[in-house]
Each structure stands twice: as C-alpha cells, then as structure tokens.
C-alpha cells in the first residue's frame, strides 16, 4: 500500500479508487446494481443514518461503483474528495447548493457554456439565487462584483466552451480569496490531463464527466471535486458547513469532517435531498473511460491542432479561435495552465454567416452534427442555431457563439480523414 501523491497521473487514471473487489477479487470494478444495503443491526443502522460511521445505506447517497469514480476523479484533480452527480448541470447545482442561500449571489464569467448561462441566470432565480455575469478579464469588474456582501463564490471555466477562452486561474483565485469566497472552476473542456485548477489556487472543480473523462459519448455524469483547502469558518458566509444542521441532530459539518466537510455535505444533504445521483452503469463506463484519459487528451489535442492550422489557412474561414495557434490571445495562458496544449474543442468563423453555418454542418459526412463534446468521434455544431439559441444575441456574442461561429470537438479518427471531410463541406457552402 502506498500514498497516491507519489504516483504519476497515468497510474492514478488506471488505479485510483479501484483496488480489487474485497468480496470477490474481481479486478475490473464491478457494477453494484443495487438500490440498498443491509444493516448489521439497529445500532449500526442508527450510526450510519447519523453520519457517525461509514458504510452504504441507499444508492441515492452512495454506491460502491460510483464511489470508485469519485475517488478516481478526486485523485486526478489532486482533490480531497468528490461527489458524483447525474450530469454536469447537477454538479453545478449541487456545489452551489452547499454554498448558497435564498437571497445569496455568486459571480460567474460571462464566457461560459450557454447551458450554464441559462441555468445560472434563469433557472437558479427560482431558488432565490442571483448570478452576476462579468467579463473575468476585467479584474476591476470582478473585484467590484465579489465585494457584494451576498456573494458566495466566483465561477469560471478553465477553458471556456465554445469560445476557446482560457481563464487566468491564479489571478482569479487571488481575487476570490481576498473576498473570502471560493473559486469554482468548470474543468470539463481541459480535463485534469491538461489542467489541474487546484495547482493554481482553485477551491472547487466541476466536471461534466459525460465529456472527456468518460470520453466515448455513452454515459451522462457530473462531478464536484473539493480541494479541501478552503477555510469555511473564515467568515459567516457558509452556514451550511459551519452552523449546526438540524436534520442531523445539530451536527456541524466543518467541525466534524474538517477538510472533508463539503464532500460529506454534498452526499449527506445534497444528494440525499436533491437526488441527482449518478447511475452505477454510467459510473462504470466513466471509470473505464478515465483509464485512457491521458492518452486520449494527447491525441485529441494533436488532431485539433492540425485541424485548426488547416482551417486557419482556408479562404472560406474568417477566423479560428484556438489557443494553440501562434498569435492567439490566449497562447500565453495555454502555456501556463494547459501545458502548452489547447484541448480539442474550438470555434471558427465561416464566411457567409448564419445560413452558411447551417449548410456547413449539414454537409459534413464524418463529423457528427450533435450537441456534445469530448467524444472519440469528431463532432460539429452551429451554436447560434442550437445550444446557444436560448440566449439573447448579446449574450450569445459574449459567450463566443455569434451567427458565423462553428464549434468542433475533434475526435480520435485519422486526422487526414477529418481534414478531407471539412474540405468537401467548406466547398459545398
């Protein structure tokens, strides 16, 4: 037995959380397809329900297969613990649920995945949560927004979807900590293989495991990862963790669980009462996917880089927003935060605007026209007519999803085949 802080990333991707099954010796992680677990006796059951001992009660709160994925992703991010959820959206809600109260607010980057913008600014209103969207490159505006007394968190994406924007994590973490709130980073697009936000001061990482972690476009899932480093008792902003919890006979999560407080609260209150639990089958698929994450991210990035360079020289392409290109505004941040890589999801502008964009996606044979990213298959989308259509034109433009924008998620096919497919589609418009 040894300490996983001394193992390399590839080893963790395969082994973290997944020792051979104690009951059977099964080497691959078994799918524990069960809703519930027997209690040894009434006293043991009482201790479990009071969070006084460890064990499984009911799969809404925890399941052995799901736990393996939680530990896997926590280890890859260098975090203290993690909470798996049914989707990335559920992960965002669950993380904020612990931090927020009715009447509370949080600050979010205005360049975010369109679905997050809608969730934050419209749906969360029904909980009495307010989201202040700011340009996180305008540090004065970020500071001002964070100074609001109701503010509980700063939220950004490490590599934004779909605009190819990279957040200056270290600077933003500094501003958040000055304001006494955690920095939450959606690390879905970069994945821990390219970027580990905790190394730059972030406090909570969010994933849609549906994307690169699972990697094969076959399993929905989300994850909240806690660094365990944020001091929840430094101010009175986080009563869910620092005040007695009536549903657990006055137990105080931060006092009882220390740097595991957010992780335990996410299961014992968040999953228990909101219920967005990951299915064991989906956890199994994501565990299998995660084993090849480092290899896949390497090839995803290489293929994307070649395609970005091809598009950059094409006469029907107006611009390419890919941080791997020389002269790109975010190249320096890609070097600092993404190991010089820029991921495999990026956008470009097609000559001819909205109509040409629709024609282009319909002309592709090998690129699949669908609303997902982080698949082995290459994917293409026209955000303005699909994922970002709930937004106002101003919001869509701010999120990098204007009328001429095409989003690619470059897969693992032979890169020459992908170039040929784009070539014939660009000729067809």
């Amino acid at each position, binding site marked *: *037995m*040894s*300490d*996983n*802080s001394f*193992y390399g990333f590839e*080893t*963790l991707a395969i*082994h*973290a*959380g997944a*020792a*051979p*099954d*104690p*009951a059977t*010796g099964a080497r691959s992680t078994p799918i524990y397809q069960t809703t519930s677990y027997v209690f040894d006796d009434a006293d043991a059951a009482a*201790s479990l329900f*009071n969070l*006084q*001992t*460890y*064990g*499984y009660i009911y799969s809404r*709160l*925890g399941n*052995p297969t799901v*736990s*393996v994925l*939680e*530990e896997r992703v*926590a*280890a890859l991010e260098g*975090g*203290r*613990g*993690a*909470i*798996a959820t049914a989707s990335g959206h559920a992960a965002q809600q669950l993380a904020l649920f612990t931090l927020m109260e009715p009447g509370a607010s949080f600050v979010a980057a205005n360049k975010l995945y369109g679905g997050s913008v809608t969730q934050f600014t419209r749906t969360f209103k029904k909980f009495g949560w307010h989201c202040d969207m700011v340009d996180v490159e305008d540090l004065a505006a970020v500071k001002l927004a964070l100074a609001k007394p109701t503010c509980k968190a700063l939220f950004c994406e490490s590599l934004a979807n779909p605009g190819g924007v990279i957040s200056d994590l270290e600077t933003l973490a500094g501003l958040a900590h000055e304001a006494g709130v955690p920095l939450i980073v959606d690390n879905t697009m970069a994945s821990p293989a390219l970027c580990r936000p905790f190394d730059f001061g972030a406090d909570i990482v969010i994933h849609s495991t549906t994307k690169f972690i699972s990697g094969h476009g076959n399993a929905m899932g989300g994850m909240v990862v806690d660094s365990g480093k944020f001091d929840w*008792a430094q101010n009175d902003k986080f009563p869910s963790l620092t005040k007695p919890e009536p549903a657990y*006979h*006055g*137990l105080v999560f*931060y*006092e*009882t*669980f*220390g*740097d*595991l407080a957010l*992780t*335990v609260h*996410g*299961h*014992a209150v968040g999953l228990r009462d909101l219920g967005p639990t990951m299915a064991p089958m989906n956890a199994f698929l994501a565990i299998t996917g995660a084993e090849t994450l480092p290899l896949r991210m390497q090839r995803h990035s290489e293929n994307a880089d070649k395609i970005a360079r091809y598009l950059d020289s094409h006469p029907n392409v107006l611009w390419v927003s890919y941080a791997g290109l020389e002269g790109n505004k975010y190249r320096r941040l890609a070097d600092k935060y993404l190991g010089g890589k820029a991921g495999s999801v990026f956008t470009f502008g097609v000559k001819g605007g909205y109509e040409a964009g629709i024609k282009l996606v319909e002309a592709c044979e090998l690129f699949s026209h669908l609303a997902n990213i982080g698949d082995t298959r290459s994917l293409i989308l026209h955000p303005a007519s699909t994922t970002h259509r709930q937004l106002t034109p101003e919001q869509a433009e701010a999120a990098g999803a204007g009328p001429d924008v095409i989003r690619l998620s470059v897969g693992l096919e032979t890169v020459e085949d992908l170039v040929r497919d784009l070539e014939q589609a660009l000729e067809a418009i």
Partner: protein
Amino acid sequence: MNHDIYPNQYIRGILDDTKVIAMVGASPNWNRPSFFVMKYLQAKGFRVLPVNPGAEGQEILGEKVYASLRQLPDKIDLVDIFRNSEAAGPITDEAIQINAKAIWMQLTVRNDAAASRAEAAGLKVVMNRCPKIEFARLNGEIGWSGVNSGVISAKRRKLPL
C-alpha cells in the same frame, strides 16, 4: 515532520503501535464528534480512556472519565486531543510527561510549537486529522463519501473489520 501532508506509512505506523488511547475533551453527548469517534475506535479494538474535568467520575461508553492525563491508571500510547489549538499546548506537555508515544490533534486543531516540543521529546505527532477518518481511509471503508483515500494497490482489499 511536514505537518501539511502525512505519508500513509507514518499514519499507519502510529495506529499499528497504539492499543490504548487517552481522549482529551471526550463528551458524554452521543451526537458530539468525540463520542462517536470513541465508539468507532472501541469497535476497531482500541481501548479509549476519556479525559474531561467537567465530566469527571461519569462514564462514557463504559469507561470511567478522568479529570486529567496524570490521573490515568494505564500506560497511554496515543493522546487524542478534542480541544482547541491553544489548549492543545499544555495538553501536549502533559502527554510528554506521562510518556505517551504519540500526540494526535483533531480536525482544525493545530499547534506547531507544541508539536515541536513533542517531537523533540521523541513523540510522533499528527495534527488537523481524525483517527477515525484515517483508520477508515487506510482500510478501504470510507469510499461511500467520495473521499480520496490516497491508497493505490493491486492487492485484494481486506473486508472491513
């Protein structure tokens, strides 16, 4: 000792060398962390002697409560401190005097000066950790809560005790 991150072998070594624990700040209230940590450690085979001047003479989980470490009748391997960081200082000094082998300060409790004195006297020290969580982490039973156990192994896990 770097008290920001402890190697697994260090923590396991302390737990393996411990049979009798003095728990300073043990509470008779069933819903206080000290109570259910004591209950858990008893279930794992440790003898736990509660120390709490406010509850002297009472019993907690079948064990008599003592007012101070000096009054304990048995030889103590580990002193587990459920008090604040400042109070952990004099308790550490008493633990050195009674020849305890190790000091353990609970989650959010950290006193680096006291730790240095204990280490100079040959004691091992763990701070800002919980022996219940660490025991569970090293024995593969904490997974339900999504904790990164820090353990990598291709050996079949033992079933929890």
